[in-house]
């Protein structure tokens, strides 16, 4: 891979990490808040259903994770398993798609 492409991957991972750091903090605060009156699916769906704010928030959260995780996993696979090259690239791209599809599907499920 070219120096430019690898540098862009690094920037993408750092940028997505910034987004994830904010998202995780908000997510944890919401969990603590949601637990106060006992946890129920109805209460959660009452908060998320039809709420465009939560749709956008969790949509961004999922996309950031789908960018961040495969880049990190790519580095781990090359260093720890010695797996490099095109096959690894295809595999982590697939992972990115799977994470994005499953995540966005879940986000949509609690919205619609």
């Amino acid at each position: 891979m070219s120096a430019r492409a690898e540098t862009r991957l690094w920037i993408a991972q750092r940028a997505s990490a910034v987004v994830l750091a904010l998202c995780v903090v908000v997510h944890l605060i919401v969990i603590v808040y949601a637990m106060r009156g006992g946890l129920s699916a109805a209460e959660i769906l009452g908060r998320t259903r039809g709420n465009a704010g939560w749709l956008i928030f969790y949509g961004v959260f999922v996309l950031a994770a789908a960018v961040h995780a495969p880049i990190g996993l790519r580095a781990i696979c090359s260093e720890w398993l010695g797996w490099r090259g095109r096959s690894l690239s295809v595999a982590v791209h697939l992972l990115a798609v799977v994470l994005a599809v499953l995540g966005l599907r879940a986000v949509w499920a609690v919205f619609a």
Partner: protein
Amino acid sequence: MTTLQVDVWRGAEDGRYQRFEVPREANQTVLDVVTYIQRRLDATLAYRFACRVGMCGSCAMTVNGVARWTCRTHVSKVTRDGRVEIGPLRNLPVIRDLATDMREFFDKWARAKGALAPTATRKDDFARVPPDSPQRAAASAGIECIGCGVCYASCDVVAWNPDYLGPAALNRAWTLVNDVRDGARIERLRAVAGDAGCHACHTHMSCTERCPKQIAPTASIAGLKRATAIAALKGEL
């Protein structure tokens, strides 16, 4: 007379530690111990040294599991229960005993474009670099490297990724990126970007912890990450 029990690596990649008894002296360095063994006990012991005063960078070895410059390492600092274990540097092929093949280490300096690309000719006047300019300060922070290989031997990323250029070569590249006389900035940033370069560094900081010259290659590598990111965003890379 007190003696020191010294276990010294014998052989190449395949080998074993051999026990020697060496008289303990005041202010004795690890290099003194190795030299005593080679001159008095076993003349076939292979090791490397030159200046003995911490300038040449040739005597680095693994002492009780830690890479150190042996000429400036006192036995009193590293001995454990009157024992010391001395082996070759990690992450480099062993030629014999304590001597490693350092070709790959120095080839990586060349791959990181560690040579100045001059922009001036002999007809030009001397370059004037203000000592307090940020670039000069950044170059000065890394310039005292003696090429001993301690950082390279201490780096886990080098062990995991044999193509990784390593802390010393990247530190050298960073001093040149900050050299206002140099004319190969973008080529050098291209050479040090990516999985074999600065982006492979995990900031473990073993290099910075172990560098006998108190250089912080980790900071230099972070500088390269910033410089390559800016160059990539500008479309220069």
